[in-house]
């Protein structure tokens, strides 16, 4: 959708919608679904057309075309307005009732077309069944559902379970124990977490905390291949979920607090063989920067900036690790991901911009060569990783449809960036911050507030946000029905004293002495809807405790998230009204997903099990106030009325 729009007639719109509507039907799994989908279409079509024409007229002008893509039409047909004009590409188009990757699609929308559960009946959600893996560390992964089997990965020691959804009680089908090194547990900065598994062609691929990537047979639970990606003794670990495009799987490392050397690598899905590796610091060759690297801003142009923006040799332990999400644009054949904070976390020890840390990269998905890069926090002083997810949407910006990327950075700025060029289109704070006094759109640089720059052995009060950022790794979701992006964010500040550190292999290369507390307002968490076209918050729900869960958006216009004290909520995607809440056994830092069971019911799944960075240093901070739950996992699966196959069989035997 790059380039000028052209006028589209109402007739053209209609025919496009008709085409799109046809494509919806195969997504429905049973007669009931189809009935619902079709009946909604009947009633919803006219308002949709109006909506789309309005979008077209208002946002495009005469030289532009309104953009109708796949599920945008579906969204519109079921009533309600897309508020931003955002359009989505849901490739690779996994079956609607299944969930194959952590983000569900290449664009990282975490949006499901299932709509049995909607704003009218979500209040009737009840527990259908549960599963516990007995692990105490934080549970951050989303369960996958493929072929009536649910796949659940635990935190360290990274055990993988297959649960049979066709049987009552959803029993364990097989268990895969990868036996990672126990040393890894003490090398992970922020709890021994795992952010999930990717499914591709009968294989489940995931990373072990001790720096191995494994592929497991989805049918049998047998190991297919195992590739050693790093050396855990250096403090390097792996926590991110692999991301698969075609025959390549992309993985990266963790260890930004340990002086690890950050990288992303592509492995061959069939064999596990490493195809290429791109480091986040070092020479252009090491970073895989070549002649087709065309960054938008001047500060990113030049030779070997990954070396020259550091004091001599410090890039080698400069981090820029790659520990969260990758997204992919199939038309541009580019992958997008962010890099971590620089090491050590004491900025006065590493004068310079410290490229390419806290940076968003666009790379050729095939060769790994960088196409553009944009550093969100130059010379990061506060541990503002640039790793958060990049959601790919096409958006009308100042009258032109742009291929965009939406990114809520740890530094509390929400960016809407042109994903073809790396140009910042919108940069606006989404959470309370005082480290910057503004953003210079011309240079693409934030304006740093000198009062909030830390220096060794000087206690700096009230810096906002703290190291955890205005939002951390927990991924946002987007809905094509509303055009909004939904995110769990923080309302936090810190007092900070830097301590100079030396690099001692196997120990942290850190130096930040932090005490966190709530930002103005007193609430620690917030759940918000964001307009990425305007860079403005639409609504938000304030939470007493931290909100560090992923988000699920659904075609039922209900968005789901959880809180650190264990409340799982369903919220009206348009109004932000909380429609349903359930207290779970532990705090929630997992990612909600939804699927259709073999019984064609829509289920919602979420892991509880607090941990991760939501509780680190909890006792010394105010982020864990009284009443905070204990750890320990339960995976909860909800349905309307708590109905399930087990419930059905109980009925029939009565």
């Amino acid at each position, binding site marked *: 959708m790059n380039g000028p729009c052209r006028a589209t007639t109402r007739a053209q719109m209609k025919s496009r919608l008709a085409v799109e509507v046809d494509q919806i039907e195969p997504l429905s799994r049973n007669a009931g679904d189809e009935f619902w989908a079709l009946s909604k279409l009947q009633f919803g079509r006219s308002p949709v057309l109006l909506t789309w024409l309005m979008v077209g007229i208002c946002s495009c002008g005469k030289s532009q075309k309104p953009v109708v893509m796949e599920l945008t039409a579906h969204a519109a047909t079921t009533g309600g307005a897309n508020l931003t004009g955002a359009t989505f590409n849901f490739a690779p188009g996994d079956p609607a009732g299944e969930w194959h990757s952590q983000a569900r699609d290449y664009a990282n929308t975490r949006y499901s077309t299932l709509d049995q559960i909607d704003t009218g009946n979500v209040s009737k959600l009840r527990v259908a069944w549960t599963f516990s893996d007995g692990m105490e560390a934080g549970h951050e992964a989303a369960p996958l559902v493929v072929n009536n089997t649910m796949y659940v990965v635990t935190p360290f020691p990274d055990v993988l379970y297959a649960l049979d959804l066709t049987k009552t009680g959803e029993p364990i089908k097989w268990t895969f124990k990868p036996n990672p090194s126990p040393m890894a547990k003490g090398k992970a900065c922020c709890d021994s977490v795992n952010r999930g598994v990717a499914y591709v062609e009968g294989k489940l691929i995931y990373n072990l905390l001790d720096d191995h990537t494994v592929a497991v047979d989805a049918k049998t639970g047998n190991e297919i291949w195992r590739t050693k990606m790093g050396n855990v003794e250096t403090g390097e670990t792996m926590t991110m979920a692999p991301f698969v495009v075609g025959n390549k799987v992309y993985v990266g490392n963790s260890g930004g607090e340990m002086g690890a050397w950050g990288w992303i690598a592509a492995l061959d899905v069939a064999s596990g063989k490493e195809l290429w590796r791109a480091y986040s610091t070092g020479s252009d060759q090491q970073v895989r920067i070549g002649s087709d690297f065309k960054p938008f801003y001047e500060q990113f142009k030049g030779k070997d900036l990954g070396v020259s923006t550091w004091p001599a040799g410090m890039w080698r332990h400069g981090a820029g690790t790659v520990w969260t999400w990758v997204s992919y644009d199939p038309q541009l054949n580019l992958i997008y991901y962010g890099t971590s904070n620089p090491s050590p976390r004491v900025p006065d020890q590493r004068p310079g911009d410290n490229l390419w840390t806290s940076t968003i990269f666009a790379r050729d998905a095939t060769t790994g060569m960088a196409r553009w890069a944009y550093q969100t926090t130059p010379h990061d002083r506060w541990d503002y990783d640039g790793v958060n997810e990049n959601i790919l949407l096409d958006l009308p910006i100042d009258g032109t449809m742009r291929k965009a990327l939406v990114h809520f950075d740890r530094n509390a700025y929400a960016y809407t960036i042109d994903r073809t060029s790396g140009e910042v289109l919108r940069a606006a704070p989404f959470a309370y911050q005082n480290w910057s006094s503004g953003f210079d759109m011309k240079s693409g640089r934030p304006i740093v507030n000198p009062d909030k720059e830390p220096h060794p052995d000087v206690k700096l009060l009230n810096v906002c946000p703290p190291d955890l950022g205005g939002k951390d790794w927990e991924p946002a979701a987007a809905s094509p029905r509303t055009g909004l992006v939904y995110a769990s964010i923080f309302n936090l500040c810190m007092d900070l004293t830097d301590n100079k550190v030396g690099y001692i292999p196997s120990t942290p290369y850190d130096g930040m002495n932090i005490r966190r507390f709530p930002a103005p307002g007193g609430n620690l968490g917030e759940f918000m809807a964001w307009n990425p076209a305007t860079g403005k918050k639409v609504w938000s729900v304030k939470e007493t405790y931290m909100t560090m869960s992923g988000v699920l958006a659904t075609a039922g216009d209900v968005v789901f998230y959880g809180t650190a004290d264990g409340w799982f909520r369903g919220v009206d995607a348009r109004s932000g009204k909380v429609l349903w809440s359930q207290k779970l056994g532990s705090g929630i830092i997992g990612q909600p997903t939804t699927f259709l069971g073999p019984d064609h019911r829509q289920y919602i799944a979420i892991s509880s099990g607090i941990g991760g960075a939501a509780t680190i*240093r909890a006792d010394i901070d105010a982020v864990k106030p009284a009443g905070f739950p204990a750890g320990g996992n339960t995976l909860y699966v909800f349905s309307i009325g708590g109905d399930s196959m087990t419930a059905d069989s109980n009925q029939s035997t009565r």
Partner: protein
Amino acid sequence: MKISLQTRFAVGITLGLLFTDACSRSEGGSATTPPARGFPAVNAIAAAPLGQVAGASGNVAALSIANPFEGNPQAIEQGKQLYIKMNCAGCHAYNGKGNMGPDLTDTYWRYGGLPVEIYKSIEEGRPQGMPSWGAALPPEDIWKLVAYIESFGGSVSAKDYEHARQGDQPGEQIAPEVLEQRP
């Protein structure tokens, strides 16, 4: 260093051997007054078992080795500097409350909270990520680190070694934390 089980046991019960002159590896070069009785002998420390001694229930006298710097404010301060300099704070937090590594201020000790047990955890390292510092730091510095950790208040007194083994320690109340608000 390999010592047979019998040798360890023999050394352990020979309390007279526990304290010798300053260990040959003690070369901290700090200004702290050396302990009057010197440092515990290397073989005495080695004799303190991590687990229960099979066939010799209850007889773990080697565990009663006290920190020669116990309560020494200079040593505690130098231990604190080492704690920051050696990046201990990166894992266990600047106030010892734990993060990547365990909390050192509470009363739960995975590998034992007696001074010699803490010493050995630092010297030998532990399997879940704790590096071994025996090659990098002289015993004097490790004892200073132990002194600093003891100052957090969660460790077990050397005199209580038998109780520590059998759980005869008072329980701990975790008071509700206060949600602090700042302007």
